[in-house]
C-alpha cells in the first residue's frame, strides 16, 4: 500500500502580520512548525503502516525552508518526502494549492490512500483535502474520526457529521481528511533524526507538473480575493436551565448525547 500525507508548514505563533494589499500572511522572520492538524494525518498513516504495512510519503508545498517539516516527518517515521517548491506557486489560495498538490501527487503516482489534516491553523479553510480529491477525481471523506478497518480494495472509516456518525466504505484510491485526536501524534525521534540526517527530499517545480500553464498556479491561479482578515470574537455560548421547572439531569444527558460527549 502507498500512502501520501499532505502536510504544511505554518507559523509557529498566532501573532502573524498580514499583507494589507494581498491578504497573504507575512511569514518572513517568524518561527514555523508543521501544521498541528497534519500531525494527526501523519500519525494515521504511520499507524496504518504498522498495522498493514505501507510506504508513507509526506508531501508539502512551500518555500525551500518548508523542507524542515519533511525532515520532521522523517523523524516521525515517514519513508519518503517531497516538496513542491517554486516561486510561481507562491500566494496560492485553496484552489491553486489543491491544484498544485494534486499535480504533484499525480506526478508521483500510485497512491492508494491520501491523508490530509482537517484544516490548517493559518488558512483554516478545511477545503484543501477535499479539493485535491476533486482535482484527482477520486472519492473522499472528510472529518474522519476513526479508521474502522482496511480491506484489500477499500477502507472503512467513521465520519463525524454534525449530528451523526456515518460509517463509510471507500475504494482505493481515495482521500480522507482526519479529525484532531484520531490518534495522539508520536513525538519526533532522535534516533530517526540521526538515521535520516542525509535522507533525500525530492523537489518538484512547475516544470515537473503536467499542466505547465503558469496562470493556474500561485497568486495568479487564485480567484480568492481577501476582503478583510480579522480575529473572530470569542464565543460565549451557553445555556441556562431552570431545574425547578424541568428535569435537569435529563436535559444535560440529552445535550451531552447530542454533542457526542457520551
Amino acid at each position: 500500500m502507498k500512502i501520501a500525507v499532505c502536510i504544511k508548514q505554518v507559523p509557529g505563533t498566532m501573532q502573524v502580520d498580514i499583507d494589507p494589499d494581498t491578504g497573504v500572511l507575512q511569514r518572513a522572520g517568524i518561527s514555523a512548525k508543521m501544521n498541528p492538524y497534519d500531525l494527526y494525518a501523519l500519525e494515521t498513516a504511520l499507524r496504518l503502516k504498522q498495522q498493514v504495512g505501507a510506504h508513507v510519503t509526506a508531501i508539502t508545498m512551500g518555500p525551500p525552508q518548508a523542507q524542515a517539516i519533511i525532515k520532521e516527518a522523517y523523524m516521525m517515521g515517514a519513508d519518503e518526502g517531497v516538496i513542491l517548491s517554486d516561486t510561481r506557486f507562491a500566494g496560492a489560495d485553496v484552489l491553486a494549492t489543491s491544484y498544485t498538490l494534486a499535480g504533484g501527487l499525480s506526478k508521483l503516482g500510485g497512491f492508494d490512500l491520501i491523508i490530509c489534516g482537517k484544516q490548517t491553523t493559518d488558512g483554516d479553510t478545511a477545503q484543501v483535502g477535499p479539493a485535491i480529491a476533486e482535482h484527482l477525481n477520486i472519492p473522499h471523506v472528510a472529518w474522519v474520526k476513526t479508521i474502522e478497518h482496511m480491506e484489500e480494495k477499500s477502507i472503512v472509516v467513521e465520519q463525524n457529521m454534525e449530528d451523526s456518525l456515518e460509517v463509510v466504505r471507500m475504494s482505493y484510491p481515495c482521500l480522507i481528511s482526519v479529525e484532531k485526536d484520531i490518534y495522539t501524534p508520536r513525538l519526533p525521534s532522535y534516533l530517526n533524526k540521526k538515521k535520516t540526517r542525509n535522507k533525500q527530499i525530492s523537489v518538484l517545480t512547475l516544470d515537473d507538473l503536467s499542466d505547465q500553464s503558469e496562470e493556474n498556479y500561485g497568486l495568479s491561479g487564485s480567484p480568492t480575493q481577501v476582503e478583510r482578515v480579522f480575529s473572530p470574537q470569542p464565543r460565549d455560548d451557553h445555556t441556562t436551565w431552570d431545574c425547578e421547572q424541568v428535569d435537569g439531569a435529563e436535559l444535560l444527558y440529552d445535550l451531552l448525547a447530542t454533542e457526542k460527549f457520551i
Partner: protein
Amino acid sequence: MPYNKVAEQDIDYLRSIADRAFIGADIHEDFSHDEMTIYGVHMPEIVVEVKSTEQVSAVLKYANERGIPVTPRGSGTGLCGGAVALYGGILLSLAQMDNIIEFDNDNFCVTLQPGVLLMTLAEQSIAHDMMYPPEPGEKSATIGGNVMTNAGGMRAIKYGVTRDYVLGLTAVLPNGNVITLGGKVVKNSSGYSLIDLLVGSEGTLAVVTELTLKLIPLPGVSLSLLVPFDSLSKSFNAVPKILQSRTNPTAVEFMQREVIEAAEQYLGLHFPDKSAPAYLLLTFDGNTRTELDTTIDKVAEICLSCGANDVFISDTQERQESIWKARGAFLEAIKTSTTDMDECDVVVPRTKLASFMELVDTLETSHGLRLRSFGHAGDGNLHIYLCKDGLSESEWEKRCAAVMDSLYISSAQMGGQISGEHGVGHAKSHYLAESLGDDAIALMRGIKHTFDPKNILNPGKVC
C-alpha cells in the same frame, strides 16, 4: 489550648471590618480541609475574606487581643494541612487579594497581592515578556501559599525555588503591626533576613499581604525531551551525566508508566509514548532554536549511551501540552485511582535517588501497600503516594504508618529532609521534630514566640 470561641460581638466586629464573613452553615465545606482530607477535617468558626493590608491588620489586632486563633489561607491546595483551622477560630481567606499591582520591566520584578494564582502570575509575566521561574505543579495555588511553603517545582534545578524570587514583602504581625521588608533591590545585606524567615513559615509568623518578586527575561525558546528507559535505575544513571554536561536543563523529571496510565485515564487523553516502563522528562530553554538543537544532540547522545531506548523531541506548544498536561495531573490522577492516600515529599541527595526508589519498591512488596511515585530527578525531591485501595481502615493505618516511618528514617539516613517543597503543616510536624532534634525545634519555637507570643497565628503547625 485556651483559645476564646468566636462570639456574637466578634462576628459583628469582624463583619464591620472585612468585606465578607461567613459563619455556621454558610461556610463552604472546602474551608475545613486542604487537598489531603486524610489529615483531618476542621471547620473554622468564621471565614473572613479580606482585601487589604488594613483589613488584615485589623483582624489580627482584634484576634490577638481576644485570643482567637487565626488561620491564613489561599486556595487551600496545600498537602500537609497547613491552611486548616485546627483550633477553629478565624479562617482568614486571602484569595480575594488577587491584584497584580505592577510589572516593572526595568527592575525585572512584579508587585502583587498574595491571592494571585500561580497560573495568572505565569501568564501575565509572559505577556510582559518576562518569566516567573518557579513552576510548582499546582497552578491554581496562590502565590502567597507558594511563598509560605517555599514551593519548589520543576524548574528548581536551574532557577531555584520560590525563596530565591522574593525581593520584598509587606506583612502583618500577629499584633496587627505592619512591616515592610526588602524591595525592588537585587542585593540586600541589611541585617537578619526576615524575608527568608517568613518564606516557608507556613503562615505561623505573620500574614503576607504584598509581595515583590524577581522576574527574569523570557527565554526565547523552550522544549522538552521525553526519554524512555527499560528501568528507573537506568534512567537515574543518566541524570548525573546530564547535569555534568553543561547543558543546564530547567527540569529533570522522572515518571513511570503506571502513573502515566493513571493520568491518561484521569484526563481521558493519550500520552504520546508508553513504550517503556520508565521515563525522564527533560526541559531546556534558551534564546534560539539553533542553540537548543546543539543541546538536544548532546543530551540525546548522553541518554543513549546510558541505555535510553530513544529520545523524543517535544518542540511545539501542542507537543508540550500532550506531555505536560499529563505530568501536571499526576497527583490528581493517583488520588482518583484510590480510595484514600497519604503522601511523602522527601528530598534526598541526588546520588541517593536510585537507592531510595529501590527502597520504595521493597516497601511496596513487603507491606502490601500500593505505592506510586514521581518527582524531580534533577533535585532529589520525590513524591511518593501511599494508596489505600481496598484495605480496611485499621490495616491501612497500620501499613501506612509503617511505610511512612521507613521512608522518613531512610531519608534521614541518606542525608535527606522530610519535605522538599510541600511543607510541614500539622501532618508532618512530628516527623520534623524527629528529624531536626530538640535544639533546632527549640530555636524554631523561640522564633515563633517572638513573632506571636499569644500563639494565635496558625497554631499547631510546623513546630
